[in-house]
């Protein structure tokens, strides 16, 4: 009856060795003194039972069964002249069962330890006192020099391909021109009047307007002229400061 029950539970075993250990423990004696012969017979009975109910058996079960059948025959009939070999095999089997049982006990011992994260807990919000100091720089002189060379070479390389720069009316030009013209224009005059003659339309003209405005702002900051714009986008008007005009009059 016990065997029948085991057959149905064969899937529950971790393999033939697991079943053998279970059967050995059922003998309720010290594992070192179990009857291997009785164990073998029980195992084979379970396999027979499994075959009777046409259970599909995995290869390792059949291999173990075949080996145990061989072992049983030698243990039963020592006259075959291979009794020593059979006894060694029986000892090895017993030793393997002891090893497995030892591991089972070790696993159980570990399982009974208070486990971290289940039975005991470590600090949930650890504090980190490590500070990273990133204030220092990793930079040396050779790096500085090679960076300088790289910058100069790149700029040098680019200059080769730089198109001839267009000559625009510069802020410097505008400063001179306004300075010259202010005395000659007594009242508010629009910015356009300070532009040089014969400007090409488009970029040259726009550049000249921008340069004149910047120059005008610069001179206004220095107190040499006044600027005025009566409405948004309306004409910008310029006039020399009175003292400037006076001087111009002198």
């Amino acid at each position: 009856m016990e065997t029948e029950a085991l057959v149905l539970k064969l899937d529950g075993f971790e393999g033939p060795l697991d079943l053998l250990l279970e059967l050995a423990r059922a003998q309720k004696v010290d594992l070192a003194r179990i009857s291997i012969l009785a164990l073998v017979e029980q195992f084979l009975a379970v396999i027979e039972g499994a075959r009777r109910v046409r259970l599909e058996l995995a290869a390792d079960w059949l291999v173990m069964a075949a080996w145990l059948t061989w072992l049983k025959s030698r243990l039963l009939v020592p006259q075959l002249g291979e009794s020593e070999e059979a006894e060694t095999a029986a000892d090895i089997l017993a030793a393997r069962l002891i090893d497995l049982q030892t591991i089972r006990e070790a696993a159980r011992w570990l399982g009974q330890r208070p486990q971290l994260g289940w039975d005991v807990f470590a600090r949930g919000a650890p504090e980190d006192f490590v500070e990273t100091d990133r204030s220092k720089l990793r930079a040396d002189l050779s790096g500085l020099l090679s960076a300088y060379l790289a910058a100069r070479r790149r700029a040098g390389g680019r200059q080769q391909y730089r198109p001839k720069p267009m000559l625009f009316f510069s802020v410097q030009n505008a400063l001179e021109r306004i300075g010259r013209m202010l005395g000659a224009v007594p009242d508010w005059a629009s910015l356009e009047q300070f532009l040089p003659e014969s400007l090409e339309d488009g970029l040259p003209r726009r550049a000249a307007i921008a340069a004149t405005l910047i120059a005008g702002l610069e001179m206004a900051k220095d107190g040499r002229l006044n600027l005025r714009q009566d409405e948004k986008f309306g004409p910008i008007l310029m006039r020399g400061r009175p003292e400037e005009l006076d001087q111009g009059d002198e």
Partner: protein
Amino acid sequence: MSEDMTEALRRVEAAVFAASQPVPARTLDALLPEGMVLDEVMAALGAAYAPRGVNLARVAEGWQFRTAPDVAPYLRKVVEQPRRLPRVAMETIAIIAYHQPVTRTEIEEIRGATLSQNTLDLLLETGLITPRGRKETPGRPTLWGTTPAFLAQFGLSDLRALPKREDLLIDPAVPAAPETPPEPPT
């Protein structure tokens, strides 16, 4: 208690308390006032915490504060917990602990069953085992060993704290009284 001892206790207490991992002796030693002996300080600290809800434990070659096992049922409501390891994983980690470094084939021979990918993945994922080089045999199979996380997980100071194999089998019929309160049904 001497003033030095009070100060020493405050420093090592703070250092062990602040860390989530076991703190090694040399780290703590560096914190002590001149002339103090670490073992004495740690013994005093352990004694001070013994009756409390948080205890000092010697684990994984260092010290760590851990909650007392008997308050665990209350904390399980507060703290998120990982799942328990299944029996196969427990047996496999036991084999690795006792036989390390050990190959997968050797593990399978001892258990008399194949080692599933799931179990290996689980043990690696939990950080309890790690490769320890390769065995110089045909195929050069990977050797496995346990990690400091294994020691921390099971509250072991080092591998020598594992029971001797002979002692495990003394009377397997009568299991030792569990150190922990019975688990609530899951």
